[in-house]
């Protein structure tokens, strides 16, 4: 951990943390600092108007703040152009947009789509639906015993010339940080289009989409200190230009006639209807906040926490911990306690004011692969402390006492 990283000072920014709860469910949704709430408040109270459509000052101010947030996201991802930054509701909508628009235009019968067994349902179900509709095939890259993707399998699948390769930057169950740069390079070299699920990557690692070379990258505002109801789809301009619109309606048009329509240029083409204006502005403030702390510092903080936690949890008898060593993982730890169902663990921990996730984490195929019906998952963020991890361990011991 960096000497200058003052987690206690950062915690002061997060209203919910003041309740005293040890919030260890940030991979599910993060807390939001008052800087984000205040940015939204400023919109609601100071220039609460719709964007793009009107020519008075409040509307222009709203448009400026909304488009300014897009510029922040562009810089955050180092995208080449602001036209490549599409507002969505979240990662799920971003992936579905690609499946509907790019997928229905480009995937044909017999095409191969490569996924991995650690994908979130949001990066599986849209492809199942598309594959069924088009008669395409799905194939999954497995994990090894450490919870790392089997790169040998991945290479073998690439030799089959997949049309599309989709994988997560960071596993929301195992915490595994995938070698996304190398995987993207291999997949591109094999001629595939590459979509990276950045839901867990953007908040903790960030990405340089140009350097990475991926075609699509989706993430959610609510996991990166931003509000609910907003997310981002990055798409390479060339692809976005060629894609048909996803939803039709206001703002995504240039001219509507009774029987046909000219669509608006990017990014509006993919932003039909009134957008989540306050939420986009809040996301801009969240990006500012996270970049203010620094992605490198956040990642170092989380990796130190993961190391500390893995060490402490290894002392808890009867506890199985999934995933790779701390060096290759983000601040996500999934566990299975012999004789105590994760739901019971979660309930007991809650009575210790420790909040964790119990369930399949929206990764049922991975659960099946790991041989458990569910896990108990603790996940960290920039505001997590060692003391909270100590409370987690104490809670686990208490659960063992109760069920013992």
């Amino acid at each position: 951990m960096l000497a200058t990283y003052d987690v206690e000072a950062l915690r002061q920014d997060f209203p919910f943390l003041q309740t005293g709860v040890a919030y260890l469910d940030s991979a599910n949704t993060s807390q939001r600092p008052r800087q984000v709430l205040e940015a939204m408040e400023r919109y609601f109270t100071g220039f609460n108007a719709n964007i793009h459509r009107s020519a008075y000052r409040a509307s222009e101010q709203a448009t400026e703040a909304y488009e300014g947030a897009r510029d922040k996201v562009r810089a955050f991802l180092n995208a080449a152009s602001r036209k490549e930054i599409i507002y969505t509701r979240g990662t799920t909508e971003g992936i579905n947009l690609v499946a509907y628009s790019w997928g229905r235009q480009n995937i044909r019968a017999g095409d191969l789509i490569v996924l991995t067994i650690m994908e979130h349902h949001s990066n599986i179900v849209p492809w199942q639906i598309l594959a069924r509709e088009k008669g395409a095939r799905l194939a999954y890259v497995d994990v090894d015993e450490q919870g790392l993707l089997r790169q040998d399998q991945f290479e073998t699948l690439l030799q089959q010339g997949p049309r599309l390769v989709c994988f997560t930057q960071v596993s929301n169950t195992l915490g595994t940080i995938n070698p996304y740069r190398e995987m993207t390079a291999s997949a591109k070299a094999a001629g595939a289009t590459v979509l990276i699920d950045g839901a867990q990557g953007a908040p903790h690692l960030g990405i340089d989409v140009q350097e990475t070379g991926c075609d699509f990258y989706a993430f959610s505002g609510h996991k990166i200190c931003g509000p609910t109801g907003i997310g981002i789809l990055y798409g390479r301009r060339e692809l976005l230009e060629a894609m048909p619109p996803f939803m039709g309606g206001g703002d995504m048009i240039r001219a509507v006639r009774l029987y046909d329509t000219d669509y608006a240029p990017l990014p509006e083409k993919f932003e039909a209807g009134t957008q989540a204006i306050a939420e986009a502005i809040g996301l801009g403030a969240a990006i500012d906040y996270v970049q203010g702390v620094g992605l490198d510092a956040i990642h170092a903080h989380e990796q130190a926490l993961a190391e500390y936690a893995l060490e402490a949890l290894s002392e808890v008898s009867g506890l199985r911990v999934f995933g790779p060593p701390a060096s290759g993982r983000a601040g996500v730890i999934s566990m299975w306690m012999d004789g105590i169902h994760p739901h019971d663990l979660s309930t007991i921990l809650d009575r210790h004011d420790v909040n964790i996730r119990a369930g399949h984490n929206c990764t049922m195929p991975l659960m099946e692969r790991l041989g458990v019906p569910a896990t108990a998952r603790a996940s960290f963020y920039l505001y997590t402390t060692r003391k909270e991890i100590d409370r987690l361990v104490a809670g686990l011991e208490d659960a063992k006492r109760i069920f013992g």
Partner: protein
Amino acid sequence: MADDQFYRDYILDHFRHPRNYGRLENPDIAHEEYNPLCGDLVGMDFRIQDGTIEDVRFHGRGCAISQASASLMTERLKGMPLEEARKITKEDVLAELGIEISAARLKCALLPLKVVKVGAYGLTDVDEEEFGS
């Protein structure tokens, strides 16, 4: 932090030492329900005589709430006329458990009731919401 108020001794006792656990040979009715979201599974086998549940056994796996609730349910069902079993309500089940079940755990607690209603009475068009969905 009053965890003992939640996982009361008799609940843990039913979880650790489930009553009527196992299978019946050639049951008159057998039905299983599964909650894929958490992996909870409860199945029951019934022997019916003259409209009365002469014997019942359950099997399954999952959290303490679902398994203790199943165990408690079999105790209640044994010797009960079918007509009466048909009338067991969600409230009955929760009262018997005797702890405050939060919304997120309701599904666990009511899974055994769902087995009874769907399986033993052939209610295919059940309202999922009634069982905490």
